[in-house]
């Protein structure tokens, strides 16, 4: 499996996958993305709905059973976690280069 076809992740995708390491519904993800980014990334509702749909069709997140039928719960899949891990490695490497060169 070629994980690199998913990389690099957009900032939004990175935050969504991170937020969904624990199960959450759509609106909770929106709030978590805002918290994780200290308010720098605000994803509008329609964009978030489409993003969750896309990530689900890519197999990076999947619905999980929840108590409320009207609010679907999602969670990052094992593929999603692998992709997140590769992205984190890539970012750490870049940050290392930036530090070394005192950028």
């Amino acid at each position, binding site marked *: 499996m070629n994980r690199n076809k998913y990389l690099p992740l957009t900032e*939004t995708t990175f935050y969504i996958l991170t937020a969904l390491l624990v199960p959450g*519904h*759509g*609106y909770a993800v*929106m709030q978590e993305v805002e918290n994780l980014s200290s308010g720098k990334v*605000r*994803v*509008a*509702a*329609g*964009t*978030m*709905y*489409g*993003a969750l749909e896309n990530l689900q069709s890519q197999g990076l997140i999947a619905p999980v059973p929840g108590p409320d*039928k*009207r*609010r*679907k719960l999602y969670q990052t899949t094992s593929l999603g976690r692998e992709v997140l891990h590769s992205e984190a490695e890539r970012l750490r490497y870049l940050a290392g280069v930036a530090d070394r060169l005192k950028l």
Partner: protein
Amino acid sequence: MIKYHIPPIDLEKEENWINNYIRHGWRLKRIRFFKYEFTPKKTDIPLKPGEIEPDEDAFLIRCDARSFKTKADFQEYITFLLDAGWRHVKGDWRQDIHYFERISPNASEELFSDDASKSARYMRQAKIWLASFFVIAAFSCSYFLTIPYHLQDLLNIKAQYLTPGLWEMEGISFWSALLFETPFALVRSGAFNLLILAFTLLTLGRLLYCLAKAYTLSRKVK
């Protein structure tokens, strides 16, 4: 206040048209076909279960184009938007343009925050037009194949009225006979064919417009 208006192809223009009234102290109550009902901002519109008390400073209308496979998917979609501060005003679950009213000042002013998702909205709208284009095109093809038409008939509509002695009648009997036969005369003369053709081309035009919009926006995405 009631306004009649044909929705433009571009959903952004539709949003602007409605939001202009909202800026002037109105609130969109409902839409039926081409009829838009506005009420003063202070008016309470009865809340549906789960809806929060709206904040009148927040009011804004934004549109989305979406089709759903099941009613449950649609329910899930409007529940998510309601959680995020958007009340569903209008839109059929199967395939439609959905109108949302912003009811929480915490919600962002846009429904789509990046060019990729704005482009995707035009793409979904194009898909809806494509579906209706197929229906209309199939209808107009079968129509053109089954009903013969000649262009010269269009120039002589009078000859398409076949009621004996129609043009010698007077008063009520003339008008009722004329009105009764007009639809048939239009079909015979081919005017109806032209109307269907125009409608087919209009739908194709709308489809192409949405595709062009989707394409230009997608090129902006890095």
